[in-house]
């Protein structure tokens, strides 16, 4: 009995440890994404970027964090106080929750113990991610509405309609992958793509649709209409200051990180790489490969932001409803036909 309890506690401790590590890594990557974003923007524009705080400006995120904490925390008059405070919390909470189902690697052997590098392998992992990304919009909507500011409300409304429009195409492109792999579990999907058997080879159109939708879901340029500075003075977070604004900005980078992780896992083989066994280095090779892919996609996200201009609102809706959804349905049909053809 006591042995069982000990094992149970050990497993629990392992999971807690993994969650804590994942949490810290996510926050760290989000913090350094802000730095990376500014550096990438600078390099793309022939500038230097932040280089004052520490060597190459590496301490810039810490300086930014200190600044965020030191700023005056302001709650505007006429706002819904509790919702105003709650909204950034919801946003960052939802953003952090999605990391739980992503398989970061196979198993890690540490001090003789085998640690499963995935918080939970629920058999509907991809749906879980879709569900939580669809909830992220509440943080924006509640925050925008509670601010009692018309620009914030505009931002919130834009965010919600954009999210609904692009979620559909995203889900449809994912369905094609599910038909191909026959599973909803991200772990199984990653396992099936060993070597160079990546899904993107079979699903180039689906990947393109998913990528565009991921950009839109993260409110990244060229789909950053909810927070566009030129029209909406910052959109839904116009009235936010101090660490509440910090939460919003942070959560956006977390979303970007998670989106990159999902893209890498679903379409680009996850922790697999040709001629590289994810079990090398005591299982550390898997996370290394996956993070390399994730960083590449984060870079692509930034690269796109600093290249393409923002969409106009009607163009956004046109692209979402009249281009991406029909394309996604076509992709689904083609995949279904292909699966039928090769199965029989």
């Amino acid at each position, binding site marked *: 009995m006591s042995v069982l309890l000990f094992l149970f506690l050990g497993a629990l401790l392992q999971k807690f440890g993994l969650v804590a590590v994942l949490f810290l890594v996510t926050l760290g990557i989000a913090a350094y994404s802000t730095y990376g974003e500014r550096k990438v923007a600078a390099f*793309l*524009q*022939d*500038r230097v970027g932040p*280089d004052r705080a520490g060597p190459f400006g590496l301490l810039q995120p810490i300086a930014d964090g200190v600044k965020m904490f030191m700023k005056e925390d302001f709650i505007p008059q006429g706002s819904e106080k509790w919702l105003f405070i709650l909204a950034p919390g919801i946003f960052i909470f939802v953003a952090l929750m999605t990391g739980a189902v992503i398989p970061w690697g196979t198993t890690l052997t540490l001090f003789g113990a085998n640690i499963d590098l995935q918080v939970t392998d629920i058999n509907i992992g991809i749906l879980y991610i879709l569900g939580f990304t669809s909830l992220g919009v509440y943080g924006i909507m509640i925050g925008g509405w509670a601010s009692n500011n018309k620009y914030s409300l505009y931002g919130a409304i834009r965010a919600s309609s954009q999210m609904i429009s692009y979620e559909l195409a995203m889900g449809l492109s994912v369905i094609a992958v599910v038909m191909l792999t026959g599973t909803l579990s991200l772990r199984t999907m990653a396992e099936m793509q060993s070597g160079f058997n990546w899904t993107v080879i079979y699903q180039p159109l689906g990947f393109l649709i998913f990528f565009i939708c991921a950009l839109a879901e993260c409110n990244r340029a060229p789909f950053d209409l909810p927070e566009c500075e030129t029209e909406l003075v910052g959109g839904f977070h116009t009235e936010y200051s101090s660490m509440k604004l910090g939460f919003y900005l942070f959560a956006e980078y977390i979303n970007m990180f998670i989106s990159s992780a999902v893209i890498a896992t679903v379409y680009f083989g996850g922790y697999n790489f040709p001629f590289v066994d994810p079990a090398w280095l005591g299982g550390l090779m898997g996370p290394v490969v996956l993070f390399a892919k994730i960083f590449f996609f984060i870079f692509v996200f930034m*690269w796109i932001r600093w*290249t393409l201009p923002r969409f106009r609102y009607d163009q956004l809706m046109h692209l979402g409803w009249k281009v991406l959804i029909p394309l996604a349905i076509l992709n689904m049909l083609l995949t279904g036909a292909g699966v039928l053809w090769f199965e029989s």
Partner: protein
Amino acid sequence: MQPLTNRSKVIVNKEMSFMERIYIPAIVGGMWTTLKHFFRKPATVKYPDEQRPFAPVYRGLHVLKRDENGAERCTACGLCAVACPAEAITMVAEERERGEEKLYREEKYAATYEINMLRCIFCGLCEEACPKEAIFLTDRIVPSDYVRQNFIFGKDLLVEGVEPEKRIDVTVRQKHIQEKKQAASTQA
């Protein structure tokens, strides 16, 4: 209408072809352009750490030079004030007393010498007019201030220090003016 230049471009609102309408080639082209810039050397000059050299034609805050012994070169002849198109320069001349040879080079010197930096147009005619090579425009920038009165620079701000480290190097500017004067005289 007759076009004035050949730069004008006729706008054609023609139907886009399929390849143009899917935008992807254009997007890839744009991404390629920015990627090329990614590997380009930054054009930034980290200003307080590194400064770009000024052109010899740059005309900033004036300096009243001393000679190698530390005596003021200015003799208060007033030619600079006469040459000044903005009438920014005023001075009061005084005769050198016995024992002041270390301070002033010639028998006459400027007791007060003021330039109104708000009037000055930094044309550099004063340095060309000066027969004693006493006044030069340097690469320093006139500091900003809230009070108009503070823009009238007296000798305390204009005359360079005696100590070698407080001397202001004007050799580049000096050479430039000499060349200019020579060119003018050969033309004449």
